[in-house]
């Protein structure tokens, strides 16, 4: 398969980004009462975050360019739970 993105780029993508504070609305789940407040991002971290999110979106964008026939079944697996015999 082609390697349009290198492992290095992938590693950067997955590892470089303090992403959370750019998306403050995303953290809406239950939080432990003892959990410390999220530390503020430095300017450098915020730049890293912006870059990482942009790279991830670019990756998703590449997949949008692949010619996928409309109605193609995604590679999910679902099976109903059948009655026991």
């Amino acid at each position, binding site marked *: 398969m*082609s390697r349009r*993105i290198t492992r290095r780029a992938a*590693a950067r993508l997955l590892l470089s980004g303090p992403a959370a504070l750019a998306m403050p609305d995303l953290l809406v789940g239950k939080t432990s009462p003892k959990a410390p407040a999220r530390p503020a991002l430095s300017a450098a971290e915020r730049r890293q975050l912006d870059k990482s999110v942009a790279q991830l979106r670019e990756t998703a964008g590449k997949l949008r360019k692949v010619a996928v026939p409309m109605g193609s079944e995604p590679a999910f697996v679902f099976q109903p739970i059948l009655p026991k015999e």
Partner: protein
Amino acid sequence: MTPQEALDATVAEIAPLIRSRQLSPVALAEASLHRLETVGRSLNAVATLTPERAREEARAAEQEIAAGRYRGPLHGVPYGAKDLLATRGTATGWGARPLRSQSFDEDAAVIQRLHDAGAVLVAKLAMIELAGGLGYNTAAASSSGATSDPWDRARWSCGSSSGSGSATAAALVGFSIGSETWGSILCPSAFNGVSGLRPTYGLVPRTGAMALSWTMDKIGPMARSAEDCGLVIEIIAGRDAGDPASLAQTPGGDTTPAAARGYRVGVVRPDFGKIYDREVEAAFEEAVRTISGLGVFVSDAKLPELPCDETAIIVITVEAAAAFEPLITSGRVRELVEPAAKWAGDMAKSVSGVDYVRAMQVRRLIQQAFDAMFGTYDLLLSPTMPIVAARIADKLETSFAYGDPLGSGGNLAGLPALSIPCGFSRAGLPIGMQIVGAPLSDREALSLGRLYQENTDWHRRRPPTAGGKAR
């Protein structure tokens, strides 16, 4: 054969001795525990020792065998399990500092099956925190610290099944269990010079195992020969109601070396000139020549042009963020070793639901492309990793600039892959090659691996830390 010598041998070699009572499971378990406590600790390969359980299972094995109730080739054999498999009565920390004391009431399905086969659990083995699910950039991203490669302690055992690879190579256990989402069985197998099988997706149930990516996680054996991988997979494979993705079908074919003669094997050659270690290239080409001289039809194969890496990144990033959501929202993700991991889960949320479904559509195309390839070839052959073991001190984004050539596509399509040693670098570091098959062709891959190992001795070499001479 002494228990110490037995640890150095393969399961297939020691099983007859255990059966005939020339080798005591109790003595074997004690030898294994001693080596884990000494060599294993120094390699950082151990998460938790399980001495009480080991002694209990070993005594039971000894008594049953003495009474004529032999259960099969794993009976009385000590093994270690990656610390993401639940084991009753022992901590299962997933390699993560915030989960160090986590425990479960029941054994994972794989652990239960091995128990039923009479195998003896001696240790939970070290792993990268959360199997790398929230990313990592250093070998030390584990509650156990960096696991050393027994061939060179300044080198990394690879991840995320770090302890499984290191402990198996250093002959601390008879075999081990690892898991793979993208490279976590194959890379440690290659770096440590052991044989490791990533089975067909769904072949081995994940009941009781940590989830990282529900659609990509696999559990498989790591051992000192392809034959041993075959012995273990026959025990742990099979449907379990606790894992909806587990398959009811079993692989066809057989694992005998002779069965591989006449196979059509496609050789996938990456661009060695650009990105590969020349010593890896030389060892791989020599292995191809050896295989083509064994009655196997070898020809060049070209992989279709599809964005496999991008697809795998989207799928794993999103599924891992969902899998570890409680850890993220509780704030405990900040206790992980990897500084960036605390943000990676949140970063995943910049991917839309439509993007994720799109990735799964592209994944279907990738499946279909591989399916078409397996109309021409029975198996594919490629180097497992483009490099030998990286230094522990290295930044992984640099040393792993290029990965397993079939890694993303093979894992996305759920293909089985066997990594076996095929040579050594001048510095004495192992080099691995992978044999990849169509879904449920696990036995065919094992068959070719066994044929190769019948005619080579790379898998018989042991590191100095195994107690013998480096060969």
